[in-house]
């Protein structure tokens, strides 16, 4: 049995932040959950899906985040409790619905879990979801440890029902993916019946139609509820203070920065001088609580990651209450005490506190970083960001990049988000020349595909994954076909949402809960839209390249589906297709005639260059046995043999 449905109340278990959130939702009696995969949020929906049977839930990986939020909203309208989870970029996708949703209000408790990624550890930017709470005027909660992650999630449903609106719970990578001890509470045994009431009076929040009109009335109501939230937050146990009554410096913080700040104060040994106000309810801020603490000192440091959201809100409050609390000196991002990009850590916070207090503190010896880097290089192999051994994307981009060069019109590829984003790097032969949001490659290429009327001769191409195709490429494709854009679309169909861990998508026959569902065929969809469609296996390098060159020359929208399963897919992982070896006698190595094509340019990690022998070699452990490198070797030195 999963520890997430452990019925024993009061026992302590080690949970990952995302698991703690799931446990909190289960204790709250969540009924429906939906999301779209995206690091660091993916485990939430997946863990709920895994216990869907036992807990009688409905859980789905929706086609995209907007739909996920809509699906979860429907459950709330039918008085169930629902949760949707996504990474920050997903909140952007869902934001159109988000504004409508919060203007009209919800019924059953509904929680949006938004996972941000400061430092862009697994993202292409450092987007922020906290602003959305302020923008759409709903409460924002930020857990500061793992226990809180659970408890806050549970409470978020109650709060949502109290104000009949969405509650946003924001996590960050270090909260979602780190683990800590959590004391379990009681699992809910509520068995609500779903029913959507709509016949009531238009202003009735529980039985009228779910609309945002009349706007003046509904909007006023929403703001009044927010005022109510502020009052509730005044007494929230998720806001805590530790430190002297009259500190030399007040640190205001939230989320993962709570842990960094606590450690910094400890390391500096300044707990008698520095007070730590840790906020769990970060929007709207509870004014009385803040006032009380601000009045106790005249120096305030706000510790948070990336954008100064908390800092600005605190400053507004301070300005409004300046007469009561007196003038303050604020430290944080705006004055440069803390960096405005990337993650924070205890060292950065300690350095900031030391600087403000004039303490002589060297967080790290000046050459520490250099030494640490050196040591880690000595111990760990220098691994570049690359596609896995046997990855179909490497083969696809080999074909794409050569096809574009042979076409010889300076064609280029517009990309979007997926493992294949790495094709902007040398591992994908630097093929992507624009890289934006999910589905944006197709949209941007659709725009390029119109520019021939201004003399542009370069052919535009775009790539997308199979999951992305459904999530957001389809509208761009419709646009391109309808407006007669000239564009080649390559769908890298690796049969799963590989980047985030093989979540199913509409192209597959299985759903998040393991159920049987109809698979939608990308080729038939594109053909029905009116595109010319070809399907190829990227491992057949020459054929794939030839097809692409042919498609590039044609006008209109052409789709090439490169179909080959991800090397890490459960089906493939078990077994090598080929046993692959280098015949040293034939290997040309560094000489003119090859110059290490396999290890220098193609660069599958399964191939290694033996510096001593000056020959290429296959690393049996890493090699996935795809056999593709045998096709590129100019000397037929790479031999493949089918494994029986």
């Amino acid at each position: 049995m999963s520890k997430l449905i452990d019925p024993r109340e009061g026992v302590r278990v080690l949970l990952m932040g995302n698991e703690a959130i799931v446990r909190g939702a289960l204790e709250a009696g969540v009924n429906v959950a939906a999301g779209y995969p995206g690091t660091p949020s993916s485990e939430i929906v997946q863990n709920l899906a895994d216990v869907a049977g036992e807990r009688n839930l409905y859980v789905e990986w929706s086609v995209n985040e907007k739909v996920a939020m809509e699906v979860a909203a429907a459950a709330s309208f039918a008085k169930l409790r629902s949760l949707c989870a996504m990474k920050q970029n997903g909140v952007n996708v869902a934001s159109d619905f988000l504004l409508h949703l919060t203007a009209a209000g919800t019924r059953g408790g509904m929680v949006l879990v938004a996972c941000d990624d400061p430092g862009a550890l697994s993202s292409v930017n450092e987007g922020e979801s906290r602003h959305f709470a302020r923008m759409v005027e709903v409460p924002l909660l930020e857990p500061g440890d793992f226990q809180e992650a659970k408890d806050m999630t549970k409470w978020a449903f109650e709060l949502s029902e109290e104000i009949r609106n969405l509650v946003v719970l924001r996590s960050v990578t270090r909260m979602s993916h780190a683990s800590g001890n959590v004391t379990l509470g009681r699992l809910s045994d509520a068995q609500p019946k779903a029913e959507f009431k709509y016949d009531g009076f238009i202003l009735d929040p529980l039985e009228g139609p779910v609309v945002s009109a009349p706007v003046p009335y509904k909007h006023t109501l929403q703001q009044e509820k927010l005022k109510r939230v502020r009052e509730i937050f005044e007494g929230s146990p998720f806001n805590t203070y530790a430190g002297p009554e009259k500190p030399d410096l007040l640190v205001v913080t939230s989320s993962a920065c709570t842990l960094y700040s606590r450690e910094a104060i400890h390391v500096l040994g300044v707990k008698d001088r520095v007070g730590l106000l840790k906020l769990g309810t970060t929007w709207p801020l509870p004014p009385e609580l803040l006032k009380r603490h601000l009045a106790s000192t005249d120096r305030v440091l706000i510790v948070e990651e990336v954008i100064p959201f908390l800092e600005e809100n605190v400053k507004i409050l301070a300005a409004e209450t300046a007469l009561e609390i007196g003038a303050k000196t604020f430290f944080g991002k705006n004055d440069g005490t803390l960096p405005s990009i990337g993650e924070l850590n205890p060292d950065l916070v300690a350095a900031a506190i030391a600087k403000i207090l004039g303490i002589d503190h060297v967080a790290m010896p000046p050459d520490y970083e250099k030494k640490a880097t050196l040591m880690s290089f000595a111990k760990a192999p220098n691994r570049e960001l690359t596609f896995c051994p046997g990855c179909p994307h490497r083969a696809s981009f080999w074909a794409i990049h050569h096809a574009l060069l042979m076409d010889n019109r300076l064609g280029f590829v517009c990309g979007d988000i997926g493992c294949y984003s790495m094709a902007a790097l040398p591992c994908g032969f630097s093929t992507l020349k624009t890289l934006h949001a999910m589905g944006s490659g197709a949209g941007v290429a659709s725009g390029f595909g119109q520019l021939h009327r201004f003399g542009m001769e370069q052919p535009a191409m775009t790539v997308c994954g199979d999951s992305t195709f459904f999530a957001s490429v389809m509208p761009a494709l419709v646009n391109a076909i309808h407006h007669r854009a000239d564009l080649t679309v390559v769908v890298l169909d690796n049969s799963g949402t590989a980047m985030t861990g093989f979540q199913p998508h509409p192209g597959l026959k299985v759903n998040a809960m393991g159920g049987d569902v109809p698979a939608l065929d990308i080729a038939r969809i594109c053909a029905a839209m009116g595109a010319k469609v070809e399907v190829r296996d990227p491992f057949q390098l020459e054929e794939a390249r030839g097809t692409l060159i042919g498609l590039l020359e044609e006008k209109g929208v052409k789709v090439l589906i490169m179909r080959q399963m991800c090397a890490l897919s459960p089906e493939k992982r078990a077994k090598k297709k080929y046993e692959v070896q280098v015949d040293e006698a034939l290997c040309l190595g560094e000489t003119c005639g090859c110059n290490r094509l396999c290890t220098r340019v193609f660069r599958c990690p399964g191939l290694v260059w033996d510096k001593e022998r000056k020959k290429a070699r296959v690393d049996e452990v890493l090699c996935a046995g795809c056999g593709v490198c045998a096709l590129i070797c100019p000397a037929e030195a790479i031999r493949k043999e089918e494994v029986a």
Partner: protein
Amino acid sequence: MEMTIMGQKELQERVHRAQLCTGCGACVNLCPYQVFYQDQTIVLDACDIKEGRCFAFCPRTPADLEAMRRRFFAPGDLTPEIGAVKGYLIARAADAAIRTGAQHGGTVSALMALALAEGLIDTAIVAEGADRFLQQGVAVGDGAEVLKRGKSKFITAATVAAFNRAAKGPAGAIGVVATPCQVFALAKMRMKPLPERDNNIDKLKLVIGLFCGWALDWRKFTALLAARTALEDITGMDIPQGRRLVVIYTRNGALEIPWDEVAPIAREACGVCVDTTAEFADLSVGSARIGETWETTRTWNQVIVRTEAGQALIDLARRKGVLEFREPPAGVLDELKAAARDKKKASLEKIIARTGNPEDLIYVDRRDPVIRAILD
């Protein structure tokens, strides 16, 4: 001028990006990095070898012309305008059927077929038409196959790429029909600039060069023809001696396109070429200069014999009755020399216009006596 051998990076900078690539194919099929597609040589991936065969063999990288002349020709045969002349002939294939399938007199096809039949070579590299008027070099092993591939292709055929491939294979003795830039690339290979990696050049036994003024850029050519004929209907084309036009023979009759329309679609690289007579071949063949109607002239070739091997093949053809000959009219050799000299001068002037420096001739050696004779 520096004759240093460099690598692919320099080749790309100085030849490809400078639009000097002739599409000869000498750098193709040596390694995985260059391929020939349509009528272009394409660099697929970067190679960082310091001294590469691609650079060494390319006809558009610097070469020591004097050393090459000394190596291949008898000093007494050399002329500044058209290279070595051991003999000068007007000739054509004796077999009218060969002539029908040929561009002009069929001399080239007949000689290649003869070389194969007599076992002088076992493999002949010729050009053949492919889809949409694109051309490619192919290796054939039988005279009849040579005869099927007569006629001039005014789109580059990357013949040397086909040689490179054949030289790696079982072929023992190879003969090549080649345009001047291709002939020059093969001659550079024969100098073995990188001795350990000689590309099996000793298999090369015979080079028949074609006179050449320019080849056309395929994309521009298809655009030019788009309004006039379907590419599939083209059966051949020619540049009638002395008339400023190009004739396109199609299934629906001949099309005449004024020279002014064709000149801009010639390959950029051809404009700066200083060799119109394939000076480094064993034999060079062009359309005849006999001062008669084009209909008659068309059925003859002029031939420059340059080497012993070339002379031996002509003698053999004469003995076997494979070629027939007529007396060159007085003064035609001088006419040819004057025309070749004019083209050399025009090309050198274009190069200087490009570099803006009369001492910098890009790939041509400024100190070479022939070049000095023309410029100074």
